[in-house]
C-alpha cells in the first residue's frame, strides 16, 4: 500500500499533465491580467454556463470508442435550424426554447443517423470522417438557408430575409428567446450572477451521463470503446451501440447549441456553428480527457479552465507586453499552443502506454 501511494503522486502528475499545466497557466494569467476577480468570475461563469452542455455532449462518443466527435457541428446546425424556426414564428421565452429543441430534435436524429452510418463504415478513422462530414453538411446548410429560406421555407419577416426576397440575412436576432433559460433562476452573489437554471440543465445532463454508464447500454458502450472485436465476440451489437452513441451526441449537441445561442442572443446564421466543434473539443482535452477516455468531471473542469484562459490572456498579454496588438498575438499563441501541447502530450502518453503493453 505504502509503495503504491508513493507511486501515485508521480502517476497523478503523469496522468494529469495537461490540466496541471493549464491550471498553472490560468493562475499566472489571472495574476497578470490585473482584472478584478469578480469580473473574471462573472465572465468565466457566463462562458461555463453557455458552453458546458456542448462539451458534455462529447463525452458519450469518446467512451463508445468514436473518438472526439467533430460531427457535433451537425447537431449545432440542427439546433440553429430550430432557433431560426422559432425566431421566424416569434415564439417567445421558454416556450420558444422548447419549441426550438422540438424542431431541432428530428433534424438532429436524421443528421446523427447519417453521421453514425458513416462512422460505422469508417471505423478507426472516425475523427477525420466526422470533420469532413461537418464541412460537407456546412455546404448543405448554406444551400438551405441561402436559397431555401423565403422560397421553400415559409419565412416572410423582412428583418430576417435578404432584400432580394430569399436567403436569410447573416445575423438573426434571437430576442424572442434570449436569456430565457438564463433568467429563469438567477442568483446574485456579490458581483457575480449565477444562471442556476442553465447550470441545472448541465447538471441534469452530467447526472444522466453518469447514470447511463451504469446501465447495460452504457456498459456495452464501454466494452465497444475498449475493443471492437472482443465486444463483438461477447455478443454486443457493435454498430447499433455506436449508432446510439452518435445519435445521443448529436441530439445533445443540438440542445447545447440552443443553450449557447440563447445566452449569446444573436445568431450568425452562416458561421455560428463553425466554432462549435473545435472549441468544445479543446475544452474537453484541457480537462484531461483523451481520445479514448473522458469523464463528466474532465468536461466541466476543462470548460472552466479553457474559457478562463481565453478571458485572461488578452489582458495578460496587454499588461505584460504593453501593446493591445501584441496582447492579441500573445493570447492566440498561448491559447492555441496549449491545445497543440495537450494533443501532443496525449499522443506521447499513448505511445508510452503502447510500449508498456
Amino acid at each position, binding site marked *: 500500500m505504502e509503495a503504491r501511494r508513493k507511486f501515485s503522486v508521480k502517476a497523478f502528475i503523469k496522468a494529469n499533465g495537461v490540466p496541471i499545466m493549464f491550471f498553472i*497557466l490560468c493562475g499566472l494569467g489571472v495574476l497578470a491580467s490585473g482584472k478584478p476577480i469578480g469580473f473574471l468570475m462573472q465572465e468565466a461563469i457566463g462562458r461555463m454556463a453557455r458552453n458546458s452542455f456542448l462539451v458534455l455532449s462529447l463525452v458519450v462518443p469518446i467512451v463508445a470508442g468514436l473518438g472526439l466527435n467533430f460531427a457535433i457541428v451537425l447537431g449545432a446546425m440542427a439546433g440553429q435550424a430550430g432557433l431560426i424556426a422559432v425566431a421566424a414564428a416569434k415564439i417567445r421565452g421558454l416556450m420558444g426554447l422548447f419549441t426550438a429543441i422540438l424542431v431541432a430534435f428530428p433534424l438532429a436524429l436524421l443528421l446523427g443517423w447519417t453521421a453514425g452510418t458513416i462512422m460505422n463504415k469508417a471505423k478507426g478513422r472516425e475523427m477525420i470522417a466526422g470533420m469532413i462530414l461537418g464541412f460537407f453538411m456546412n455546404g448543405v446548410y448554406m444551400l438551405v438557408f441561402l436559397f431555401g429560406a423565403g422560397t421553400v421555407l415559409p419565412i416572410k419577416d423582412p428583418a430576417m430575409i435578404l432584400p432580394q426576397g430569399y436567403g436569410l*440575412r447573416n445575423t438573426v436576432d434571437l430576442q424572442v428567446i434570449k436569456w430565457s433559460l438564463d433568467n429563469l433562476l438567477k442568483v446574485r452573489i456579490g458581483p457575480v450572477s449565477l444562471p442556476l437554471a442553465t447550470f441545472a440543465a448541465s447538471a441534469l445532463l452530467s447526472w444522466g451521463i453518469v447514470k447511463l454508464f451504469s446501465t447495460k447500454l452504457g456498459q456495452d458502450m464501454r466494452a465497444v470503446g475498449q475493443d471492437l472485436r472482443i465486444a463483438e465476440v461477447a455478443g454486443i451489437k457493435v454498430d447499433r451501440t455506436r449508432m446510439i452513441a452518435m445519435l445521443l451526441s448529436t441530439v445533445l449537441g443540438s440542445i447545447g447549441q440552443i443553450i449557447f445561442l440563447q445566452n449569446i442572443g444573436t445568431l450568425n446564421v452562416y458561421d455560428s456553428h463553425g466554432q462549435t466543434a473545435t472549441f468544445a473539443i479543446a475544452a474537453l482535452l484541457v480537462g484531461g480527457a483523451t481520445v479514448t477516455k473522458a469523464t463528466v468531471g474532465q468536461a466541466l473542469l476543462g470548460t472552466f479552465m479553457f474559457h478562463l484562459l481565453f478571458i485572461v490572456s488578452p489582458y495578460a498579454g496587454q499588461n505584460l507586453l504593453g501593446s493591445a496588438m501584441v496582447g492579441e498575438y500573445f493570447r492566440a499563441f498561448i491559447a492555441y499552443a496549449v491545445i497543440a501541447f495537450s494533443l501532443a502530450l496525449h499522443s506521447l502518453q499513448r505511445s508510452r502506454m503502447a510500449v508498456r503493453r
Partner: protein
Amino acid sequence: MKLFFRLAVCLILVSALLAGCSKPAEPQTPDPSQSTTPTFKIGIMTGTVSQGEDEYRAAEQVKAKYGDRIVHVTYPDNFMQEQETTISLLTGLASDPDVKAIVVCQAVPGTAAAIDKIRETRDDIIFVVVVPHEDVKLMESKADIMFETDNLARGRTIVQLAKELGATHFLHYSFPRHMSMELLAQRRQIMEDTCKELGIEFVFVTAPDPMGPDGIPGAQKFILEDVPRQVAQYGKDICVFSTNCGMQEPLIKAALQEGAIFAEQCCPSPTHGYPNALGLDVGGIAGDMPKILAAIEETIVESGGSGRFATWPVPINMVFLRAGVELAIQAVEGEIQLTDEAAVKAALEAEAGVTMQLSKYSEDGNFWLAVMDSVIFGK
C-alpha cells in the same frame, strides 16, 4: 519522471517569459499634461495591424492624444471563430465604471451580443460603431451612432471627379466574380448612368480575376499591358478605375507612364497603391497621412501627372474612428447630441480636413454613410 521534468521546464520557460516581458510595460505612465482633464475613459476596439493597419494606427494616434483616458483592445484576428472573445473583451472594457463610451472599428460579429450584454447592467455607455459586419438593420437598433463608407454614392462622385480632371472616357476594369456582387454591380451601373449624363464615354474591360489561375501577378501584368492599349485607342484623357485592390498599383503606375487620369482607388486612401506604384518608402512615416500625401505629390508632379491623379486625404476608417472618439467625448460631456447632423458632420470634417457628404441609411436610425472630398495631386 521525464514528463514531470518537461512540465517543470515549461513552467520555468513560461515564468521567465512573463518575468522578462513584464518590464517593458512599465514606461506606460500617464502623460502629466493630461492629469487635469476629466476622469472618464473611452474604450476602443480595433483589429490588429494584420486585419486593418489604418484603424490600429488611428487608435494609437488617439491614445497618444488622450493618454490613459483611452483603453485600447484588439479583437481576435480569427474573429469569425472567436466571437466569445470579442464579447468578453467588450464587456471587459465596460467592467471599468470610468469607461463611458466604446468605439468599435470594425464591428466584427459578436458586437451586437456584447452591446446587449453590457446594456443589461449599464445604460450609461455610448456605442460608436464603425463598419458593422453584422446585419445592418439589427446593428442600427443597438448602436448609438454608426458609420460606413457610401460605396454607391461613390459611383457618382468618382465619375464627377474624373470629369473635373478632364476625362472624356471612363474605363472600368473588373471581372465576373466582382460583377456578380450586388453592390459592385449596382455601382458600375450608377457610374455608367453618370457618364451618360456628363457626356463621358463609359468603357468596360474584363480583366483576369486575381483569384483565377494566373493569380494576382497575372492580373497585374494584364493591367500594365492593357492601359497603354486603351490609351492608344481612346487618347490620354481616359480615367482608369478598377474594383480590385491588387490592381491599383499597376493601374497607377501605367496611368502615370501613359499620361492617363486616375481619380480614385477601389478603397481610397493615400496608402493604397500609391506608395508602391511610385516606389516610395513610407516606413518612417507610417500612419502620418500629411507626410505620405506630400511625398506622393512630389513624385507625381515630378513625373508630369499634375492635376490628373487624386485620392482621399485620409483612409475613411481612420476618420470614422478619430471622429467617433471626439463625438463620444463631447456626447459624454453633454455638449452635443449624437443625433445632431451638424455636430457629426463637423467632427468628421475636422478629422478629414476636407468636406464630406453624409447621408442616412434609414430616416429613423442614426447610421451615417459618408463620402469624402478628394485631394488632387499637383493642384
